[in-house]
Structure formats: structure tokens, C-alpha cells
């Protein structure tokens, strides 16, 4: 196993160290940081916006670029969270809890530097773990059958909904179903029959995944800045952030060191869970660190605690790498961003999953090694650039929003050169905007859309093998195990609320007895 890992690492290093790929990691980190820093734009939007750029590149180079964008966007999101309390996406909300108060106390540079060091360490630890765990899981997954894949996809889709948060599970599940519905538009690959095309030639090949990603994320996020009159960037004075303010003392390093180690490990294992992703990783790391802190230290959480800042930063970066494990080994995305990357891989003609390790080792290992290189670049190059990046946050939204809209529309048009796609994007954008206003999450929709075709194929195949009987759902021990996990994840929110209600009921009973 170790021989395979080392030879794989060498393949990855030789792929990554091609000058073109180094340049792409650098460019990806840079662009990711810039886009991720813009309020409202997160890693999903950043990766979706950059996909058109990668279409002319070979698959390994393209994926290396997208991985750089992903890391850069998470780093950029932390910057806007800390400086203007505007998290680009849910994964950096926990960063703002202590990062923004620290910045308000006059230490914006220190907060940004700690976020960068924690992200780097979290990324490094998780990439090492990814190198160890991904090949093991991939070798196990070669014995998977269609029935297992179908069950795994149900697990992934359920998990992404179950982690949607209080009150949002049903809405997230409905969005998954909507994504699956949209995936059925076009020609059925098995029978050649047209479904929901309404006689339109443009819909014969189905809905373009990039079109849907841009419409549901980039366009709607830009429009919601206008709708909600978000002027969060107007309060920032970029001159406040200079090179000297980035210094972190030895004592502070000692204080955050163990926090980073713990949070990275926790973040990685949470990221591996399909559907959990960086958001849960950052919040759980923050929660764990607060529970471990002394009562005196606990009081500082939420008021500018260094540990409270380092924990979610290490956690979300580690979880981001962890979410690549199900993507690369099983072909099931672990988060919204990896769902977009799965779409890009499929567009390149690469089938993610256990066979990817043998069929396209340069993409598999190149991606892993480039993630590490991306981490190094982010630390060495982006840290000194923070004072300049911060100026981007001062761009007035009058200019920023039309430019985001323009890049999103162009990203799709310059691939298909079809005016119909622009109009379809606008229609999807209006529908997505309406759903967002009613608090329907968009990531499950994208995940459902990307997995829809694969899911139908695997179900059809499994039914063919098992003589048109659904008995494969409980007859195969592996499938049964996955289905039981799905059931547990689905019932977990109900169980949690039941236990909480019982506990609060018990407390009130106690109080009544005491009275």
C-alpha cells in the first residue's frame, strides 16, 4: 500500500511541478482569494466562475486550477468575514464570530494572519490524511456494485439535507428532488427518448450544469446584494491594514498551536462525511474548542478570542480537503463545491470514483499535491498581499454587481455561443431567487442535479441485476449498511429535537416539583 502511495505521490509531484500547473495553482489561489473575498460570493461561485477558463486546458491542469480556486476562495471568504463581518458563505460564519471583534479591537492584521496560519496548518494536516485515506477507500470501493452506488448517492443527498440545519431539512430534501427533476430534462441516455424538452432543440442535451450553477449561485448572489441593500463593504478603510499589523507573537502561536491540531483532525473527519462539508467542520471545531476552554477563556469566545478564530479556520480548511475523499474515491461529492467540481470532472470525460486512481492517476494525485502547493502559495504569497486584497472590498457595489453579472453570463455564453442559454440562465436565476427568498437552500439542488443521471443509471442497472426487485436494498450487506446509515441521518434531526423536548420537559417538571 505504501509503495503505491509513494509512487502516486511522485506522479502527483511530477504533474504539479510542471510550470504550467504551478502557474495555474498560483492563478487559482489568486483568483479564488479575489472572488471569495467579495461579500456574498463563496467557493461554489468562485469555482463555477472559473470553470469556463479551464475548458481549454487538459483535465489535470484544469482540476489543479479549480483546487487552487477552492482554497483561495475559502481564504478570501475568511478575509471578508474578519474585516467587514460579511462571510462569503456559511463555512466562514464561525470565523466572523471572533475574527470581526478582533478586527474591531484594532487588530485586523493579526486576525488575518492567524486565519492564514490556521488555514495553512489545517490544509497541510488534512492533505496528509487525504493521501493516506483516499487510496485505502478507493481500493475498498472497487468492490462496490450499482446497488451500493445507488445507496451511496441516496446517502449523500440525504446527508446534505440532514445537515441543512434546524427547520431546513424538508426544504433541503425538496431542493434535492427539484435538482433530480431538472436532471431528467433532455434525452434519456438508455432509451433515447426525449423528456421534458417541449420540442426545443436546445434542451435535447439537457440543461448545462454550468448554466445552472451560475444561475443559482453567481447571479442570485449578485442580485441579493442589491435586493438586501448590502453595503457592508462601505464601512471598511483598507488603509488600516498594513504589513506590520500582520505580526503574531510566539506566545500567541503557543496558544493557538494545539487548537489548530485538534480542529484540523476533527475538520478532516467531518469533511469526509458526505454532505457535511466545511460549514459543519468549522462550527464543530469552534464548539469543541469552546467546550475545552477554561471557564475564564470561554468568556472571551465571541469577543475576539484567538482560539475561537483559529479553530473554525483550521476546521473549515481541513473539512474542505476531507470533502475530496468521497468525491475522488466514490464519485459522490461531499459538499456543494465538490459537486460543482464533479460536474467539471464529468465534462472533462473523467469518471470520478475508485477507478479514477488507476485510470487517471495524474488527475487524482496531481489534484492532491496541488492542494498542498496551493496551501503554501496562500501562505507565502497571499499573506503579504492582504493589504492590497483588502482594497478590493472597498469597490463600490455600483460597479461590482454588474461586473459579477457580466462574468457569470459570459462564462456560459463563451462556451456555448447560444443566446438561448443566457435567457435560460435568467429564468433559472428568477426561480432560484424566489426560492432563496423563501429560505430554500441551493446547494442540495445542485447536488441532486449532478447526481441525478448517475443515480437513475445505477438504479436501472441494479434492478436489471436483481430481476426487477428492490430486494438489493436489504439483501446485500454493504447496501443495507449504507441504507441504515441513511436512515439514521434522516431520523437524527427528529431524534435530536425529541431528546431536546424531553430534556426541557424534564427540567420544567423538576422546577415544578421544587416549587
Amino acid at each position, binding site marked *: 500500500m505504501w509503495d503505491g502511495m509513494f509512487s502516486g505521490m511522485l506522479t502527483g509531484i511530477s504533474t504539479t511541478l510542471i510550470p504550467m500547473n504551478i502557474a495555474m495553482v498560483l492563478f487559482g489561489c489568486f483568483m479564488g482569494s479575489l472572488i471569495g473575498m467579495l461579500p456574498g460570493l463563496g467557493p461554489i461561485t468562485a469555482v463555477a466562475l472559473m470553470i469556463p477558463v479551464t475548458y481549454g486546458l487538459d483535465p489535470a491542469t484544469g482540476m489543479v486550477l479549480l483546487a487552487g480556486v477552492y482554497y483561495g476562495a475559502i481564504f478570501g471568504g475568511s478575509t471578508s468575514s474578519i474585516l467587514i463581518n460579511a462571510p462569503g458563505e456559511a463555512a466562514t460564519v464561525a470565523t466572523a464570530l471572533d475574527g470581526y471583534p478582533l478586527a474591531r479591537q484594532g487588530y485586523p492584521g493579526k486576525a488575518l494572519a492567524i486565519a492564514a496560519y490556521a488555514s495553512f496548518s489545517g490544509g497541510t494536516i488534512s492533505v496528509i490524511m487525504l493521501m493516506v485515506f483516499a487510496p485505502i477507500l478507493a481500493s475498498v470501493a472497487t468492490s462496490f456494485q450499482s446497488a451500493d452506488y445507488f445507496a451511496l448517492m441516496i446517502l449523500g443527498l440525504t446527508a446534505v439535507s440532514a445537515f441543512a440545519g434546524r427547520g431546513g431539512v*424538508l426544504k433541503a430534501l425538496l431542493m434535492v428532488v427539484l435538482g433530480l427533476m431538472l436532471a431528467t430534462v433532455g434525452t434519456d441516455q*438508455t432509451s433515447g*427518448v426525449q423528456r*421534458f424538452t417541449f420540442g426545443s432543440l436546445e434542451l435535447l442535451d439537457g440543461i448545462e450544469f454550468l448554466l445552472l450553477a451560475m444561475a443559482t449561485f453567481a447571479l442570485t448572489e449578485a442580485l441579493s446584494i442589491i*435586493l438586501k441593500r448590502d453595503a457592508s463593504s462601505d464601512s471598511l478603510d483598507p488603509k488600516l491594514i498594513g504589513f506590520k499589523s500582520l505580526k503574531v507573537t510566539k506566545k500567541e502561536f503557543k496558544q493557538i498551536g494545539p487548537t489548530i491540531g485538534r480542529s484540523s483532525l476533527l475538520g478532516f473527519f467531518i469533511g469526509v462525511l458526505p454532505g457535511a462539508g466545511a460549514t459543519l467542520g468549522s462550527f464543530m471545531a469552534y464548539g469543541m474548542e469552546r467546550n475545552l476552554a477554561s471557564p475564564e477563556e470561554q468568556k472571551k469566545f465571541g469577543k475576539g478570542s484567538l482560539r475561537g478564530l483559529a479553530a473554525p479556520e483550521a476546521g473549515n480548511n481541513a473539512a474542505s480537503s476531507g470533502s475530496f475523499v468521497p468525491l475522488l474515491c466514490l464519485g459522490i461529492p461531499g459538499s456543494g463545491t465538490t459537486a460543482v467540481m464533479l460536474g467539471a470532472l464529468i465534462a472533462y470525460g473523467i469518471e470520478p470514483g475508485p477507478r479514477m486512481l488507476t485510470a487517471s492517476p495524474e488527475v487524482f494525485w496531481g489534484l492532491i499535491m496541488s492542494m498542498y502547493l496551493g496551501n503554501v502559495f496562500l501562505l507565502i504569497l497571499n499573506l503579504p498581499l492582504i493589504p492590497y486584497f483588502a482594497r478590493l472590498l472597498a469597490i463600490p457595489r455600483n460597479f461590482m454587481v454588474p461586473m459579477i453579472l457580466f462574468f457569470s453570463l459570459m462564462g456560459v455564453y463563451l462556451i456555448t455561443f447560444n443566446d438561448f442559454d443566457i*435567457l435560460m440562465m435568467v429564468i433559472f436565476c428568477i426561480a432560484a431567487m424566489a426560492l432563496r427568498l423563501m429560505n430554500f437552500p441551493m446547494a442540495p439542488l445542485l447536488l441532486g442535479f449532478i447526481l441525478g443521471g448517475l443515480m437513475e443509471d445505477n438504479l436501472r442497472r441494479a434492478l436489471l441485476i436483481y430481476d426487477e426487485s428492490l430486494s438489493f436494498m436489504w439483501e446485500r450487506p454493504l447496501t443495507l449498511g449504507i441504507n441504515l446509515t441513511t436512515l439514521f441521518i434522516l431520523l437524527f434531526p427528529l431524534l435530536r429535537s425529541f431528546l431536546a423536548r424531553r430534556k426541557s420537559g424534564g427540567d420544567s417538571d423538576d422546577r415544578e416539583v421544587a416549587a
Partner: protein
Amino acid sequence: MLLFSMAYGLLAFRIPLSFMDQGEFFTSRTMPYALAVLGTILSLLILVMPTVDPEGKRTLTEETHGMDWKKAILLVVGMIIYGLVMKWLGFIISSIVFLLCGFYILGERRIKRMLLAAIPLVLLLWVIMSALLDVYIAPGEIFYMLGVL
């Protein structure tokens, strides 16, 4: 979403069955049927189930209170017009006009700044696409009609 799921289910009945599908257990309609049923059940559950939020379910009016609808709608209209005129005016002119209109809708009135932001950006993208990435971007049909090209 309830109406959408029901309409989707009704349209699923109209999916033609191929010769291969006749008598099969799993046809091109099976997945859409299942999804329509699931969508309907989930939509009904959302409507019927009580909310866990102590403040109750927020109405759409409460959710959208104080939002800047005028500018957002104008931008959406701008995007539709951009999609419609792209073929006729070509990439460069339509993009510059779209950006200028976008800046104007959002309250920018300094013409010089607007031009300095829009023109170099569009030209730079055009140069990158056509000169560096070798992607052919067709000029607008108006140029052929006017006899310029």
C-alpha cells in the same frame, strides 16, 4: 413547488415510451413518476408541518420587506435584453452597453468612471478569448447588414 411537482408529474405521463421500454419494469417515465410523488409529498409536508421556529413561519411579505425590487428587476430586464441583442450587436458593443446600463441602474452617474470600468474590461476579455485562447467570437449581424464586414 407543490404546483411544479404536480405539473411535472402530469407532463411525465406524456413522455413517449420507446420500443425497448414496452413491457419493461423501469422505463423513461419511472424516475419522473417517483420524483413527482416525492416532490408533492415533501411540498405538502412543508405546508402542513408546524415550524420549529419559535417566532412562527415568516410570510413572504415579511421576508421581502424593505428590499430594493426596482433595481433588481431592472437588472434582470437588462440581462434579458443583453441575451436578445448579443447576436445582433456582437459581444463587444452589447457587453459595454450592458455594463454601462448596470452601473447606471445602481446609481452611478460619473460617465468617465463608467467608461473606464466597462470598455477596458470587455476589450481585455475579448483579447484573452480571441488572441490568447483562440476562441472565435462572431461579430454582430448588424455589421454584415450595414456592409461594414
